[in-house]
């Protein structure tokens, strides 16, 4: 049976852990509001941009109106469906730090499954990791990584999205642009991130980034708007922005999701610690009482024996 000193030190240790977890939870709570507002504020922009570009692209793909635009790939290189070397790249967006519940693990697992499926389909997969946790996970499994960036923060998020977007667009359009010869050419670009549904729920998502495809077009606008300048010039202007914006949205979601996940995880860790402390204290008191009783009995027994 555990002696009293052991229990006492165990209680102290759990109390110290609780101090850490509750501090982390409080820090996360304070940062969460800002990150959440940023993610929510960015959403209308991203969604609208996506819709506009999506309907433009959809109008190409359908080949309605002008016949010569039936082949979407002809309009812009970022729309071209390639079947060159069967290589795909996944932009894997995780956090830099752990202690955020299943935040990183869930996405790592989802991407792992995805990679296996792509391999079975005969495709070569390379990874571009954003966030140290994703890199750490795949480094050990021998997965090929082409680039790594640390996880974005609210301050450098926009710049980082631009950077990653430029890299993947270069890989997609030929792997030569900007002198980045170490970037292999790819046929497809996917990006994986945690979608910030609400504070309690983050959903791992893997979506296709390039060739650019419109998400479900909820557009009833069969009448095409007037475009100025022409459609191709407009696409040339908007497509890179749209690619950047999708990554930006993913970053915003990931940053807010990480903080929310950490808050939730640390909250429940603190609760568990409190529960554990309560149980241990009860046990400690009971043991203490038992020890006193035992001692008393011994003393009484001894006194009785002397009397006898």
């Amino acid at each position, binding site marked *: 049976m555990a002696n009293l000193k052991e229990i006492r030190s165990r209680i102290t240790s759990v109390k110290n852990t609780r101090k850490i977890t509750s501090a982390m939870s409080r820090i996360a709570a304070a940062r969460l509001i800002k990150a959440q*507002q*940023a993610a*929510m*504020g*960015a959403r*209308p*922009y*991203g969604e*609208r*941009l996506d819709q*506009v570009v999506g309907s*433009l692209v959809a109008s190409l793909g359908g080949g309605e109106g002008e016949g010569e635009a039936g082949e979407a790939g002809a309009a812009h290189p970022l729309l071209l469906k390639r079947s060159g070397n069967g290589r795909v790249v996944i932009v894997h967006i995780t956090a830099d730090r752990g202690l955020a519940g299943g935040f990183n693990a869930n996405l790592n697992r989802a991407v792992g499954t995805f990679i296996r499926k792509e391999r079975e389909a005969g495709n070569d997969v390379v990874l571009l990791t954003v966030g140290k946790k994703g890199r750490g996970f795949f480094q050990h499994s021998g997965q090929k990584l082409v680039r790594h960036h640390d996880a974005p923060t609210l301050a450098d998020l*926009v710049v980082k999205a631009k950077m990653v977007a430029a890299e993947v667009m270069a890989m997609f359009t030929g792997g030569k642009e*900007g002198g980045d010869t170490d970037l292999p050419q790819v046929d497809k670009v996917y990006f994986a991130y945690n979608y910030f549904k609400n504070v309690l729920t983050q959903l791992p998502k893997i979506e296709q980034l390039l060739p650019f495809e419109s998400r479900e077009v909820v557009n009833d*606008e069969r*009448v*095409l*708007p*007037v*475009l*100025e*300048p022409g459609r191709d010039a*407009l696409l040339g*202007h*908007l497509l890179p*922005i749209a690619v950047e*914006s999708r990554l*930006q949205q993913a970053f915003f979601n990931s940053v807010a999701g990480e903080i929310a996940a950490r808050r939730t995880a640390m909250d429940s860790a603190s609760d568990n610690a409190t529960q554990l402390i309560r149980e241990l204290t009860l046990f400690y008191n009971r043991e203490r009482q038992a020890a006193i009783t035992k001692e008393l009995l011994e003393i009484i027994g001894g006194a009785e024996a002397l009397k006898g």
Partner: protein
Amino acid sequence: MADTTIQLDILTPLGPKRHGVVVPGVEVPGLLGELGVLPEHVPFITPVVPGVVRFRDGGESVRIAVGAGFLEVTRDNRVVILVERALEVSEIDANKAREDLKRVSAELSHELGSIDAAEHRKLVTEQGWLEAQIRATQP
């Protein structure tokens, strides 16, 4: 039937600047020149360059400096301006913008040879954005 007002949204990645304001019309710096959008405009999409967006909100006239992006007029009489950044006049530090502009312009005029294309493009963008801010503060 004819509407005399139009709804205006100005959206940026850092959150909406204006959402669903009802205005009699709006002036926007387009890629092919300054343009005004009035109610009942045909559905329309065009790029926006850094400059000043002007409209009347109630009795007061509003000026907002915007970065690059694009403008969309939808069929339901709505103008959406999507730009990478936007600042209200009250948020602009005109003196700082002027100083920054001086610095950026000097860099552009002196070091054209020694900087690469990407850096040059960045400086030009910055210059346009600063000029837009200054123009927004001058009525």
